[in-house]
């Protein structure tokens, strides 16, 4: 595995199992293997894209990194510190460096708090008083994310979806964090607004040297934001590479299928592209297939795929977990 010099974030063998339903009253509980042995590193100032379909564990991974969840096994190392089992008190100083942007701008802002209160809460919780006072700093941040600082006393319902997402971004930026985990930050927005938010986050990354873990299901959106991309399937990373390599020469059959399924708004490109149609749905993470978890939908699957889970190995510029990579 290629390692990055001084990664700001390093995740090793990260695993999260959730208790599922149980059979009868005294039966054994099912275990939902949401994330299962995930390894990756993120360099300072880089944007890592985490893509996959629903239920692949990308959001759980994001919540483990920000320690909104505690891992079942494995470690999360942030700036050299193993934070995997930190208590809430221990996490508090870390959280000033590690923030999150949520998917749903309607659910993630308290409707009874003004924008000013929402964006200044991080200062209060961490007992930080910025130079010139909290209000001045909050108004500066509002301006940075493209909101009118005079809207300090307005409530979330007075804003559109795109503006609300800007408020969420402002809150994440308040303490000048080093790493931001953005979980599907544009998927709830209208098409014409998505580009505004992507451009804003790109500018912020450049201006403040922010590091991003960008979680999304939309491969085209990730391509425009992340420099490196990791593809997840059913709790595992199946492929990880720099953007250009991954999109030009996908090595894992799943990555290939995922790319070919993206509909393109160009009538001429439609006939020209190779089509791979996966059959069936993503299997249940309570009972994932043995060996390679993708084998039940893979056209290349052979005997070895059912018995041995493939390891994430370096092939050229890509790390891929497949017995028969392209």
């Amino acid at each position: 595995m290629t390692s990055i010099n001084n990664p700001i974030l390093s995740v090793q063998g990260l695993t999260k199992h959730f208790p599922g339903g149980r059979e009868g009253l005294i039966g054994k509980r099912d275990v939902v293997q949401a994330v299962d042995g995930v390894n990756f590193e993120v360099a300072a100032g880089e944007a890592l894209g985490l893509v996959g379909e629903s239920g692949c564990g990308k959001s759980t991974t994001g919540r483990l990194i920000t320690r909104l969840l505690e891992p079942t096994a494995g470690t999360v190392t942030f700036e050299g510190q193993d934070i995997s089992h930190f208590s809430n008190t221990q996490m508090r100083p870390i959280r000033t460096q590690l923030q999150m942007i949520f998917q749903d701008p309607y659910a993630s802002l308290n409707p009874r708090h003004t924008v000013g209160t929402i964006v200044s809460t991080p200062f209060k919780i961490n007992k930080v008083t910025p130079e010139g006072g909290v209000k001045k700093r909050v108004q500066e941040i509002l301006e940075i994310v493209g909101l009118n600082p005079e809207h300090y006393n307005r409530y979330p319902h007075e804003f559109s979806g795109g503006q609300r997402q800007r408020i969420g971004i402002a809150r994440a930026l308040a303490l000048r964090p080093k790493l931001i985990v953005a979980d599907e930050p544009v998927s709830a927005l209208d098409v014409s607004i998505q580009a505004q938010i992507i451009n804003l986050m790109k500018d912020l990354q450049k201006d403040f040297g922010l590091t991003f873990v960008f979680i999304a299901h939309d491969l085209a959106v990730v391509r425009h934001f992340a420099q490196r991309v990791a593809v997840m399937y059913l709790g595992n990373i199946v492929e990880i590479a720099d953007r250009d390599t991954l999109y030009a020469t996908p090595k894992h059959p799943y990555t290939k299928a995922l790319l070919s399924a993206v509909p393109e708004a160009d009538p001429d490109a439609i006939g020209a592209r190779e089509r791979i149609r996966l059959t069936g749905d993503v299997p249940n993470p309570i009972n994932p297939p043995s060996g390679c978890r993708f084998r039940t939908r893979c056209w290349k699957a052979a005997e070895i795929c059912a018995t041995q889970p493939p390891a994430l190995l370096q092939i050229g510029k890509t790390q891929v977990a497949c017995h028969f990579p392209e």
Partner: protein
Amino acid sequence: MSAFLEVKNLSVAFPTEDGIVQAVDSLSFSVEKGKTLGIVGESGSGKSVTSLAILGLQKGSKAQVSGEIWVDGNEIIAASEAEVRKLRGKAMSMIFQDALAALHPYYTVGHQIAEAYLVHNDVSKKMAAARAVEMLDRVGIPEPHKRVNDYPHQFSGGMRQRAMIAMALSCNPSLLIADEPTTALDVTVQAQILELLRDLQKEFGTAIILITHDLGVVAETADDILLMYAGKQIEYGTVRDVLQVPQHPYAWGLLTSIPRLTGDPSLALTAIQGAPPSLISVPSGCAFHPRCTYVDNVGAACASIIPELIPVSEGKHHSVRCHMSAKVREDIFANQVKPQL
């Protein structure tokens, strides 16, 4: 010859406490059998209201519907509830976005598919149940004779959407309205569902209205595109024309702002400024003018006069609602928009 579905000057308004909301404003379009029309627009542009009006689902509500809707020679707006009811399910049916909300959790999937078939056909319950199995098989559900007795929660998201399609198609409708049928689904499953719709259309010659916000989905499935903004149709034509030589600045904005799998990803996306308007206070004149980059090419007309829907060129099935002259639009598109696509 008239088309299977013909909509003329359809307007839908809702009286609210804050005033009248003109959700749909003088919409005209048609769909032939075996063809697909994609209605594209952002939230609040009137796409879903249009589909509900075609199905006659606004009867009995406060909505004020005017214009004409002809389905296979039957006018819907003036028709009685009983008359529309006879058409609904049989001549036309609908697939909803959220299959989990549209399916009843207390009844088995098979029961719900058989119900519509029983209502519209003179058959026994047994035959209707057999029809449910047949339809599930047709939409690619494995082991349909077993799964027919499952409840919706036992189906995955993709399977539920398939079950909805099975239900909508059980009476062989000639018109199918699909309202964001794949928005809640993953891309690989979305590709399966779109392919299924195409196959079924080829087999049964169904006319389809596909409502979506995703230009990629339209490009792959539709024959015509109707682009809506703030309740009005602002561009209408074949998929090829609208996506390759788009005429309206809003269409340009949409096409240049969507992230793609090709092109230089390090360039910033050209975003449309501002946000879609609220239908309670639609901007005067052209509703898009506060967000339009090219208002300076026209002058005062954009803010005061609502532009007419005019054909792009004589006799062509491609029309646009914009004050700019054809020449100016052509220049801007060739020099400023095309290089970004």
